[in-house]
């Protein structure tokens, strides 16, 4: 530690600490622009000049290393003169357009100009003007305002992992811009808006829509990815105007992904459903809540009488709150059915009987930065979990080795030590090879339940390299990504990964796909009763023999259960034509049902046009209801509604409660969402006892066989979920939908496959799965494995297709 003095107060900082670190510790404010605690030190704004005893001239506090016995004065005559001088220079070229600048009111330059600027300028010459740049649909520019702090440039290089902005030219001709004709496409790009200390980079969707001082700040939690980012939602006149990060060092630090930041536009979408709607005689009509709820209750009663309670099923999205999912399962179980699920994109449910708890990250998010080696299975990390990917990027920067097993080889913007890019049906054998390698390396027996399956496997060099990386570098972890969770052999992937983790003694975790992926298990929104979580849960499921139908069986996506399905469905927060593993079958199954109740915030086009729905109940999105999400690290985070529900929209937990009352079910007397939460979570909200990603004893299926391999002959589809199609809200966020990440799906395939099929780039081809067919242009990606076609799912243009990883046929059109 180095001891020194700032403004007469003693302070000590670690070796390599700076004067700025010491000042921060003491709570002494030194004005600055380019300095940011998460970025490297540039010392180019010169605003933080301070006086240092015995130094011949003022020194920048951010870049001056603390030295033993040093005496620093931050507010002395010399320091203040220097700071004022710098401010005068900064203001020379800065336009006086604060009254129309979006940054006005939250502008560092404006604030500091009050303290250090002169009341009028001595500069009478012409100011320079810099042309604005088009940086894409999210960031708006006013480059004349730029003071060249280069925070945005450093953010790209150091945090986002891709340098998209740079400072070109020199001296007075310096400008911040993206390379000729390029836009800023990083999924973390919105953070440069927060970082910009002036109004040069501002939010395009928010532009000119409100002044910052008119906005109320309300706390909330992100409903998108499993991270559980903390949000500040800013509102004006009962409308969400903007979303900003709420700093939480353990989760999102001071960052926010673009999905979390800009998806609020979807909340104000014109597609919002504001009144209940019923389909009568094939015609959709708006009605009041009473009519709608009675219609639903009668419908459910009819189905129960006619076909038995088992023919009622409920599916809720894991983007719904803990309270909503709890009441949904309680309602269905109260009616006598155990068919309730949230895993609509999962296709392999073999492990259900062997689950030991809710699958979770297996470690706190903050500890990811300390990992020395990782194996990520089935995930395009930066698109699935942008801020988790950022943590991993930082870990890699500090020497961690990232190993990847994935069918897609998109640039992860970080160094990858070993990558195994294999077709989806080869992922299991790749993992088996790693298991074999690690067992050989450690000299241990292969566990019994995998022995048979592994008898024919021999480890490749890549598998060996991955095994060595995991066993030589500690701490290490294995993560199962979204794509692996949707994989037709998820159970085997999970089981093998678990063995690898056990033998190499590393952490094992499942990356939560949605904000409440962990919470959905705890709420009991799974068909196998309440073995974990849900402490006061009604055990109706157990009473009725325990097992209900899972998502795949309910929606007829399971081959064995094909053509079956329920007679009545309650869908919470779902668009089945986009959200399911096999959208084609899901829609067909729903269309055959007697009653489909959709609890949704949006007038889903497909539900109305395809006519599979019978009732639409307008429920509140996360900003209009109180609730709780349990993040992928098992963190319970409750939030309140930030605005009043739009129109006649009601929070889903209230709707379900009233529905429970109308159906005269027990235990639906809740007054507040806190009471509901109290029924699910123990006092203190500690859910750690219910978190466990491990599976019990379960044999791994033979590596090259099994019915799950239905895509192994012919061409295989790789149907990943695009970043801005993952949930209902983000699908309707207009600006995000204009980004490159939201581009319409193409049929990506390798050049050799194109040659084999005689296809040209951009040629429109017909793609068929089961009875569904779509037409898409061909695109070339030589990094894809052979015999695979990458076609995004969760997009209207591919909704007619079938399973995300099933066989697909191609025809020229």
């Amino acid at each position, binding site marked *: 530690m180095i001891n020194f003095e700032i403004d007469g107060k003693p302070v000590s900082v670690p070796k390599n600490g700076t004067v700025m670190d010491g000042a921060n510790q003491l709570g002494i404010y030194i004005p600055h622009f380019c300095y940011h605690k998460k970025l490297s030190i540039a010392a180019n704004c010169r605003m933080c000049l301070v006086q240092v005893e015995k130094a011949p001239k003022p020194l920048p506090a951010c870049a001056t290393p603390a030295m033993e016995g040093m005496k620093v004065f931050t507010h002395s005559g010399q320091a203040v003169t220097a700071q004022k001088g710098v401010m005068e220079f900064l203001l020379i070229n800065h336009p006086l357009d604060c009254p129309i600048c979006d940054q006005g009111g939250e502008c560092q330059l404006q604030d500091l100009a009050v303290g250090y600027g002169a009341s009028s300028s001595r500069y009478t010459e012409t100011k320079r003007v810099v042309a604005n740049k088009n940086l894409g649909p999210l960031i708006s520019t006013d480059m004349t305002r730029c003071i060249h702090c280069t925070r945005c440039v450093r953010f790209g290089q150091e945090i986002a992992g*891709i*340098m*998209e*902005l*740079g*400072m*070109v*030219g*020199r001296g007075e001709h310096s400008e911040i*811009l*993206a*390379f*000729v*004709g*390029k836009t800023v496409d990083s999924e973390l790009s919105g953070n440069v808006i927060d970082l910009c200390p002036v109004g040069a980079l501002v939010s395009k969707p928010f532009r000119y829509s409100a002044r910052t001082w008119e906005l109320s700040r309300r706390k909330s939690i992100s409903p998108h990815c499993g991270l559980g980012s903390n949000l500040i939602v800013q509102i004006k006149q009962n409308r969400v105007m903007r979303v900003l990060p709420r700093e939480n060092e353990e989760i999102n630090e001071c960052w926010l992904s673009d999905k979390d930041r800009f998806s609020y536009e979807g909340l104000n979408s014109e597609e919002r459903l504001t009144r209940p709607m019923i389909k009568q005689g094939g015609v959709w009509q708006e009605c009041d809540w009473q009519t709608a709820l009675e219609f639903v209750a009668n419908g459910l009663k009819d189905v129960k009488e006619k076909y038995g309670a088992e023919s009622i099923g409920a599916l809720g999205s894991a983007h719904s709150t803990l309270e909503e999912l709890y009441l949904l399962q309680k309602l269905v179980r109260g009616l006598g059915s155990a068919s309730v699920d949230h895993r609509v994109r999962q296709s392999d449910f073999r492990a259900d009987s062997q689950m030991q708890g809710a699958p979770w990250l297996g470690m706190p998010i903050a500890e990811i930065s300390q990992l020395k080696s990782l194996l990520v299975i089935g995930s395009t990390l930066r698109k699935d979990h942008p801020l988790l990917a950022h943590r991993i990027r930082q870990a890699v920067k500090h020497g961690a080795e990232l190993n990847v097993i994935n069918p897609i080889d998109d640039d992860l913007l970080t160094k990858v030590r070993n990558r195994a890019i294999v077709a989806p049906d080869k992922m299991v054998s790749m993992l088996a090879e790693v298991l074999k390698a690690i067992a050989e390396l450690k000299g241990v027996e292969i566990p019994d339940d995998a022995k048979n399956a592994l008898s024919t496997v021999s480890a490749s060099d890549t598998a060996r390299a991955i095994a060595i990386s995991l066993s030589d570098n500690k701490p290490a972890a294995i993560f199962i990504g979204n794509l692996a969770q949707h994989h037709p052999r998820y159970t085997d992937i999970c089981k093998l990964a678990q063995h690898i983790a056990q033998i190499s003694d590393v952490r094992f975790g499942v990356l939560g796909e949605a904000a409440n992926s962990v919470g959905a298990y705890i709420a009991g929104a799974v068909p196998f009763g309440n073995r974990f979580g849900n402490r006061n849960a009604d055990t109706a499921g157990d009473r009725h023999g325990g097992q209900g139908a899972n998502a795949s069986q309910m929606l007829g996506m399971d081959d064995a259960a094909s053509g079956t399905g329920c007679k009545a469905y309650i869908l919470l927060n779902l668009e089945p034509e986009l959200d399911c593993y096999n959208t084609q079958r899901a829609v067909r199954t729903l269309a055959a049902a007697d009653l489909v109740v959709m609890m949704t915030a949006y007038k889903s086009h497909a539900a109305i046009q395809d006519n599979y729905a019978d009732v639409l109940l307008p429920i509140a999105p996360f900003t209009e209801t109180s609730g709780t999400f349990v993040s992928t690290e098992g963190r319970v985070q409750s939030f309140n509604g930030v605005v009043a529900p739009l129109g006649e929209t009601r929070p889903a937990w209230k709707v379900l409660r009233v529905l429970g009352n109308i159906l005269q079910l027990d235990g639906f007397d809740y007054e507040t969402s806190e009471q509901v939460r109290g029924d699910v979570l123990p006092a203190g909200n500690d859910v750690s006892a219910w978190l466990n990603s491990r599976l019990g004893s379960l044999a791994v299926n033979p590596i090259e066989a099994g019915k799950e391999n239905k895509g192994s002959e012919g061409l295989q589809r790789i149907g990943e979920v695009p970043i801005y199609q993952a949930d209902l809200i983000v699908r309707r966020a207009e600006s995000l939908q204009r980004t490159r990440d939201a581009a319409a799906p193409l049929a990506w395939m390798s050049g050799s496959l194109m040659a084999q099929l005689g296809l040209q780039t951009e040629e429109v081809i017909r793609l068929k799965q089961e009875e569904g067919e779509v037409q898409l242009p061909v695109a070339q990606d030589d990094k894809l494995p052979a015999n695979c076609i990458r076609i995004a799912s969760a997009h209207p243009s591919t909704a007619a297709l079938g399973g995300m990883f099933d066989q697909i046929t191609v025809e020229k059109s």
Partner: protein
Amino acid sequence: MLSAESLKKIDYELTKYPADQKQSAVMSALAIAQDEKGWLTTETMDFVAEYLDMPSIAVYEVATFYTMYNLQPIGKYKITVCTNLPCALSGANEAVAHFREKLGIGFNETTTDGKFTLKEGECMGACGDAPVLLVNNKRMCSFMSNDKIDQLLEDLSK
């Protein structure tokens, strides 16, 4: 994009730096590319970026920072005349006026036959030889009286 010969030169430059710090060679690589192509197009800079494993914008930063990189097409011969104080005191302004008259172009302009481009330069560190000028960034000419300028233009025009 670049000839095998140029790539060989760039590869040689790369041997001077550690393998994981290829971008250290960006200035030499750009100079080599410019020698071959005459000026740096966006595509050339993109190519250099990819060749050196660095973001295109980082290459662009370097190319725009240094004035000796040409980001616009230029004539066969780029004549850069120093107009800083010592040169100006020793007749740089007269030299520039002579160029203007002889070539019929001003600074940053190119003769219609595409032969000469005139540029204004900063101190070249040879004030004792003032006025000085550079031909194509490489050849330094000292004591540029009008006679010597005539001689130079004649030699280059051949």
